[in-house]
């Protein structure tokens, strides 16, 4: 499948700003202010001069008036590390879901690149896949699209192992966007919480589809788990289908409740919703974009 983002959509994305609830320290100057005082252009405060400070920052006008050496402090503009963790397990193999997830990743990636943020695409399934570092600048988006297009869904979902591997590598703390259907037999809560513990801002994007939430086939059926290959014979009655739907909704609600409790971002991105609406409206209402 070839991912395409039309020009209007890309133009709209440029005006969106990725907001982080915290300011992150970065190695490169970007559009966001870091708490760290440094070499920015925007004046922040004065402090007393101490040995070793850069003479160039001494406010000579203040010395003339106060007869004290004061240093001018500026807010340093730093880039935001954005890690887009995209689930490529077989449970995401449903064309609509996988496409949806990749489009979301592409859109977020574009926003980050447009604002000179450091964006890293991290595919995962049973473990981490090869990370994609497109660099800076929105011109790199086409390379990102190519690499997203080249992704194949496969393997079983193991969020715990994947995020453990992610956390175990030395990297700057930043915004971790986990794009997944979160259908992990071990549960998604602990791995996601682990990211938060490591200092990352975590945002969960729950990709759902009608195929997952509803069962439209009745009668004696043999269910085949696409990831594990396990089968289960079941007589799907309307009551059973309703119970399955309830279980799915409970699963989604539990994830949302967990994210709310630990102040993690959560958005449910159903494939039935138009992709543009999700990015422009649903993300805004979810306080992901501003």
């Amino acid at each position, binding site marked *: 499948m070839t991912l395409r983002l039309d020009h209007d959509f890309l133009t709209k994305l440029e005006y969106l700003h990725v907001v982080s609830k915290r300011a992150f320290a970065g190695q490169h100057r970007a559009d966001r202010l870091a708490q760290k005082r440094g070499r920015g252009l925007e004046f922040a405060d004065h402090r007393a001069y101490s040995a070793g400070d850069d003479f160039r920052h001494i406010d000579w006008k203040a010395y003339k008036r106060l007869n004290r050496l004061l240093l001018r402090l500026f807010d340093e503009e730093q880039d935001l590390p954005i890690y887009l963790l995209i689930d490529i397990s077989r449970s995401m193999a449903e064309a609509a879901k996988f496409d949806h997830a990749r489009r979301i990743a592409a859109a977020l990636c574009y926003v980050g690149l447009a604002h000179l943020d450091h964006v890293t695409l991290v595919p995962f399934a049973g473990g981490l896949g090869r990370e994609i570092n497109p660099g800076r600048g929105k011109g790199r988006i086409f390379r990102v699209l190519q690499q997203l297009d080249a992704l194949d869904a496969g393997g079983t979902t193991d969020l715990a192992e994947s995020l453990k591997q992610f956390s175990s590598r030395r990297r700057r703390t930043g915004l971790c966007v986990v794009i997944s259907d979160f*259908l992990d037999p071990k549960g998604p809560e602990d791995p996601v919480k682990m990211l938060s513990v490591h200092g990352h801002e975590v945002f969960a994007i729950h990709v759902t589809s009608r195929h*997952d939430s509803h069962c439209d086939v009745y*009668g004696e059926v043999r269910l085949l788990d696409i990831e594990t290959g396990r089968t289960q014979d079941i007589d799907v009655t309307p009551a059973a289908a309703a*119970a399955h739907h309830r279980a799915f909704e409970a699963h989604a609600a539990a994830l949302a409740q967990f994210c709310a409790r630990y102040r993690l971002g959560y958005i449910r991105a159903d494939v039935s919703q138009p992709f543009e609406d999700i990015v422009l409206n649903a993300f805004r209402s979810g306080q992901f974009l501003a």
Partner: protein
Amino acid sequence: MSVAAMAGWLLVAAAGAAAVGVFRLKVRPRRVTVSSLVLWGHVLAERRDQTWWDRVRWAVSLVVTVLIAVVLAIAVARPLMRARGQGMGRTLLIVDSSLSMLAKTRDGGTRWEHAMAEVRRQAAAGGEVVLATTGQGIVEGPTTDLSLIDAALDSIHPRSSEAGQWPRLGQADAIHFFTDGALARPLSPSVVVHSVYEEAANIGITAFGARPATSEAGGAEAYLEVGNFTSRAQPARITVTRGTAVLVDRQLDLAPREVFRQVIQLGATGDPRLRAHVKAQGDALAIDDEAFGWIEEARVVDVAVVSERPSVFTALLARDRSLRVRGLKPQDYQPRGADVFIFDRWAPADPPVAPALCVAPPTVNWVGVRGETDEALPRWVPVEPHVLLAGVDPLTVDIRKVRRYQLATARVVSASDRGAPLVAVRDDALSRLVLFAFAPEDANPEVAAAFPILTGNAIEWLARPHLSEPGPPGPRLLPASTTRITAPSGKSLPLVQTGDGVVAQMETPGLYLVEVGGARSVVVVNVNAPDVSNLATTTLPSSAGPLRGLTGTGPWWVRAVWLAFVLVLAEWWTWARRITV
């Protein structure tokens, strides 16, 4: 059990077994790929608690499925059963069409409706069917087409208070008789009797009639008989009217099984129509609540004597108060001027509208050809018995001469010893006439009794056709000259020519106006049958069985198909809603 029947039952059993087999058959489930079985695990955990209920539903569904298969197999096997019936021969279904079958039953129907339902059930059992009634004989069949039988059943109804004739069929392997047993009939032991009898309370008129009074005062008298055929006393209101005048209007308390009788004196003149009516609470049969009478003598007959010397006959008939006699010269004759004409030695060129007594007429087309020579001193020889000759003593008739007539269609009732007709009658659709071949002057009318009696008889026969005694509802044979019958409802009845008469169906009590060769008479039809009115007893043995319901009048196999359809619907609905498995 025949081979065909055994094959039918085998088919039913096989269908049931096949249904069980198919129901238990484990079809390969469809494979459905899901993203994860995690959520389905929760569903399965919930469903384990409902296993016992699933078993109940499975059992119910199995029973319903087998039932559907068996019912459909039985409906399909019907042709086999029918084939068995055809092999065995014909079934004669005889329905008792006596009027007591109109009695109401406690379920709101009538005995007749119960009989119709029973006949349909029996006809649907298969085989070749012949339908007959005790009143009409065979009305349909032999046929295997149930629609023909249905149509015939819709066309028949109770029509007679008499037992009627037992229908005969050359080859009938089974005879079924549907009756309430009100009228006793000798039945062969091979006849299967289906009883539609149910005891019912009834009050009805069992006799009503009028006749001339025997007293010298003249007039007439009516006789009324009302029976209470219930096991308890009942009040009843009896009314008798003559025309519009009420003769009797009384309330009676009739004891159980009591029969009330009354003779009512009637005046010589007045309306000839009589009507009796009884009204009571416990009254299951309506047709016997009304009876009618007719006082023939109360109607004055207008007689016109057309002659150059009419005084001979006017003097002869002047003493009869039921006649209004007048003499006319031939030039004053009008074809519609009287109820009866007497043409004395003269006749019009065309026949009159009214009946006529022609006395030695000249040659005219509508009477016959008069001979040229006279026959002297003929001797009276009766040719055939006829009402005209009632009371006529041939020995007292002294005829001096007679002229021989050539009559085309007339019946000679009296002739001379040499073959010359003396008295002839004609009764056909064209005319109704009596011919005297001799003139009064050529006989001895003044001194012999025979001639006035003969003349009176002729006028009575012409003006007041004596059709028959008051009879029960049903078919009635009338003279061939009958041209029209008007029912009490005002409608004309259809006439069926049979041999030397016509037959008309007079099915309801009342006064039927009959036009016979220009004369008009009235036929009285009454039930007047205690056997019909008595609904509390039956001649059937108790083994004939109780009254069966009216429901399910269609063929049973159609109902079976409907039942299967309903079961399929129920199974589909419950399956769709997963109420059953």
